């Protein structure tokens, strides 16, 4: 067997030495554990809480048991609690009322009437505006159209208006012609007689005049139409402005209404909140006695703490002393184990030279094994 086996023996020897010493340490540890358990039991008894009691004028004695349970010698102030609950309830009811009132305000009949009236006004204004814009558009269209048709229309109308007069003149002319024995005369220069021509010339002059007047009138009407279009446009724009004003008014009114509602709601909410707070405060107040009792318990707790602190200080001293003894035993075991281990290990390490190869010991051992 070679070096390997030696190594193995080395290991097994070391381990066997270690295991044997460990068992000793384990046994020592068990002794320490028992000591410390005993110490702990002692310390637990010494440091156990003994409980305490507080007595105030608010009620019966309040106590804290050794198990920490606390018995408060006073309960909540039910009357206060009831009053607080009632105030809260009333606050909530008032908030509800405030909501109702706000709801009522939100359906303000005057506002509705105003809105309806305004709506009607808006409708009317819108109608008027539409009419105005329609008229403006119509007049604008008319004013933008050529005047020829209108001239003809005016001319026809003017001539139609003059027709009875012309007919009368013609009839008179015819009668005069007939009376003068000139009826039925037709000449190439005149179409009819000279008198017919004179009348025709006069009528042609009148027609000419009428045509020029018609042109002037048409032009004037065009101007009037443009002006009326402008006027109606302005009316439409005024309507639009009015609508805008109305809208603004409505908007402001809505805003005001909303603000009023919000203010009312806020007010109501504030009132309700105050009432609720009052209720809650009342309820809180119902526990004020208990709070005070607890405060007294805290004051009592200081005393108990001081008593406990004394207990714990003594137990601490005892524990420190017990633990110090144990620690000392442990330390000695530890030093013994380390010394054993180091001794065995230095034996085994000499089986190999400095280069790692088997030393003489190692060789020996190798040859043995």
């Amino acid at each position, binding site marked *: 067997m070679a070096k390997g086996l030696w190594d193995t023996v080395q290991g097994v020897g070391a381990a066997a030495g270690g295991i044997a010493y460990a068992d000793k340490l384990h046994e020592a540890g068990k002794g320490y554990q028992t000591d410390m358990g005993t110490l702990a039991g002692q310390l637990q008894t010494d440091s156990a809480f003994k409980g305490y009691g507080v007595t105030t004028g608010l009620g019966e004695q309040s106590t804290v048991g050794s198990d920490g349970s606390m018995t408060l010698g006073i309960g909540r102030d039910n009357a206060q609690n009831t009053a607080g609950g009632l105030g809260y309830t009333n606050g909530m009811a008032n908030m509800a009322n405030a909501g109702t009132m706000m709801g009522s305000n939100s359906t303000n009949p005057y506002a509705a009437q105003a809105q309806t009236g305004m709506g009607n006004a808006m409708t009317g204004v819108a109608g008027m505006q539409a009419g105005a814009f329609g008229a403006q558009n119509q007049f604008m269209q008319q004013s933008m159209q050529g005047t020829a048709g209108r001239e003809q229309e005016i001319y026809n109308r003017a001539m139609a208006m003059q027709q009875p007069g012309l007919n009368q003149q013609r009839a008179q002319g015819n009668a005069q012609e007939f009376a003068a*024995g000139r009826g039925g005369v037709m000449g*190439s220069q005149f179409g009819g007689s000279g008198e017919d021509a004179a009348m025709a010339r006069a009528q042609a002059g009148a027609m000419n005049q009428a045509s020029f007047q018609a042109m002037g009138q048409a032009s004037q009407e065009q101007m009037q139409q443009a002006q009326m279009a402008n006027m109606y446009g302005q009316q439409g724009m005024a309507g639009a402005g009015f609508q805008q004003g109305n809208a603004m008014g409505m908007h402001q009114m809505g805003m005001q209404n909303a603000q009023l509602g919000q203010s009312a709601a806020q007010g109501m909410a504030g009132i309700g909140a105050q009432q609720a707070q009052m209720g809650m405060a009342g309820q809180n107040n119902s526990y004020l006695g208990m709070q005070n009792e607890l405060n007294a318990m805290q004051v009592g707790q200081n005393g108990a703490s001081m008593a406990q602190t004394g207990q714990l200080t003594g137990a601490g001293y005892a524990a420190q002393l017990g633990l110090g003894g144990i620690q000392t035993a442990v330390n000695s075991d530890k030093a013994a184990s380390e010394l054993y281990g180091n001794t065995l290990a230095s034996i085994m390490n000499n089986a190999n030279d400095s280069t790692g190869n088997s030393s003489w010991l190692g060789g020996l051992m190798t040859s043995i094994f």
Partner: protein
Amino acid sequence: MGQPQQNIALTTPAFQGVNTEDSPLTQDVTFALRANNAVIDVYGRIGARKGFFTEAKSIDLTNVTSYSGIYTSTKVNIGSISHSEGLDVICVAEVEYYGSVTDTAVATERFLCQLQNTELVALTHSAGALASINTIEGKLAQIVNFAGQYFVFVQGQDAIEVAGTSATLLKDGAGFLPPQDDTGNLTDGITGGVACSAYGRLWISGVGGNFQEIWYSDLGDARVWYDGKAVPTEPLNTAGGLDVSQYWPSGRDSIKNIKAHNNGLVVFGRNSILLYGNAQGDPAAIGGIFLQDAITGMGLVSRDAVVETGVDLLFVDDSGVRSLGRTMQEQSVPVGDITANVRSDITSKIAGTADKSSITLAYWPSEALIVCNFSSEGYAYAIDARRPSGTGGSRITTWTEVLFDRSVYYEEGNDTYVLLGGKAGDSICRYVGQVDAGETPYLFAYESTPLSFGDSVRQKFPKKVNVTTIGSTQPTNATVSWGFGGKLEYSKAITADANAPSFWGESQWGKDLYGSAAVSLGRHRVNTKGSGAYVSVGVDATIEGGEFSIQELNLQLLIGRVY
């Protein structure tokens, strides 16, 4: 004891013409009961009319190409006839012909002809002109002279313009402008059959069958008519129209003829007359033509029954021949009754004439005659144009065997002409000589009214009638008739020959009677018989070449007891 014969001289008997209106018993011998084929001669005596002597017999149809198919002409009748100073006489010739040797039916074609010397020469017709003139009876065409040209108007057909020897349609002439206005042509051509040339214009009615309207041409231009367009085609056109429909005083009438008179226009209706004044210048201009007067109850029986005499406008009304001048002056129809002495007769004649277009009125100044012709009856009233009779009515004689439709009077050089349009194949005749066409004699007849000589209760016993005639030396066969109670019971033939003119040294004094160079007196005695309270005397003479007038009648008679 024998009673002496009394001589009652009937000097210039019947020189006041025929009178059938007044009571015959109250009339004197200056009126006649009958004076046929007679006139009041130049000396105021009753005498035979002149003959209808054939002036032109032959017709030259060389210019008528359509005539080539005519085998032979048989008759040439003349319709309308006209004459204008400086132009040949123009007429519408109706040629009756056979188309071939075997033809038995006579065809008729009408042509416009000129009278050149004594021959009718057909004009060169355009197709339209030939069709137009060939459409209606020749006598219905109206030929007027305007601006030195003839224009022929045919009712319902386009008017014809005659230039030289060429006849074309007026509407085919260059620059023709029909009546028009802005709606277009009112008529394509001038189709009226009533025409008047006066005051530098043509005045036409009947265009398009409308006899309520008169179209008048431009001044001096027959081709330019009414232009009622807003811008006339010719700027200076003064043509026009005249609608008379509203002026008839009798409600509704139609234009029969248009005549220029007294600076105006006389528009004849059938039953009324319109008098337009100031027709000169531009009628349509202010102050132009105007209705001056309207006469109702008088009218024109047919288009050609009207004639101007220079001072009067005579026309044939239903009641006879009227004088418009007198009517205008006196505003009374009866006074202006030219034919008052034969009113009933002529009224009956007018009414009895079915073809009113055959009634015409002609004025022959050289003959101092106004002839109211009833050509369809072959009958005419010859009205003396010199002076009226004692009744106020004109002196009137009658004509029979009248063989012409229309006539024309004109003067040329130192001669005067009365040309007659023969209607019995006689072509153009002339009122001249003492024989009718074809050398046909005609019968002059005179009959006095029953004569009482101022004593109607005593018997008269005519013993002899002396007839003093004025005539040529050529013997005239005559018959002297007499009778009683308005009836010519007895007659005796005589030969009315006048003594030859006596010239100093050629005849002896006491043997020959002196007379004019060609006409001489002749006295012819006829023994008579019978008796009666009223004595009628008549003289008939067959005129066949010699003039014949009755200068005087002398009755030698016994006046018997009161019976």
